[in-house]
């Protein structure tokens, strides 16, 4: 197993990809907040990721689905409160994941310095 192929590295990579996609999808939802007939999109990868990690792999692809929440009169179901909360939540999760990856790199760096 290579240095950066460990389950945790791959899982963190999948998490970063999924969170970045979610951030983009939230941007799309907010951009379409007044578009008649637009249904909000949701990104899911967490459940799959935890199952993958249990199986001993960490690679998952995030899935995008339309939200089935009730729509407004114009057929749009974007809720600004939900999107704002998700946006902040995703941002913090992303920062957490980047810190975890940086932590792994710093362990490797420590190993490289030891002689």
């Amino acid at each position: 197993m290579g240095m950066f192929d460990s389950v945790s590295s791959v899982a963190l990579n999948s998490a970063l990809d999924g969170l970045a996609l979610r951030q983009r999808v939230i941007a799309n939802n907010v951009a379409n907040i007044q578009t008649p007939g637009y249904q909000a999109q949701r990104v899911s990868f967490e459940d799959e990721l935890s199952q993958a990690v249990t199986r001993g792999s960490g690679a998952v692809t995030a899935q995008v689905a339309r939200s089935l929440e009730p729509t407004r009169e114009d057929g749009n179901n974007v809720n600004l409160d939900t999107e704002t909360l998700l946006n902040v939540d995703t941002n913090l999760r992303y920062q957490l994941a980047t810190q975890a990856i940086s932590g792994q790199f710093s362990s490797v760096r420590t190993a490289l310095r030891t002689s």
Partner: protein
Amino acid sequence: MTIFGAIGVASTGLTVHRKWLDAVSDNLANVSTVRATSEDAFRQKYVVAQEMADGGGVQVAGIVEGSAEGRLVYEPDNPLADEQGYVRYPDIDMSSQMTQLIMAQRGYQANAAVVDRAKETYAAALQIGR
């Protein structure tokens, strides 16, 4: 997907909402634009938003114009008045325009907030390995 995609998507939202603001302010500016009865009244503009393909954001699908009929007002002193003393005013509903103004403004602010948060996220990504 380009690098920093979320900022690009939010900027399409900013653009659409700014165009909406432009249309509303144009409508409000022309709320008292008088025309002769032989001409069309000033037609109010509605911005029609449309989702872009592949989650690329939002775009203006087109501008729909309101009624050319307007409303006839009796103003015999007006140099544009016809023989009966009528001129044509645009049929713009002030309260609807003000509501739209606030909706467009809030939509713009929401998209600007998304840009801010996306910027934070990407800044965190740039710190990996530091």
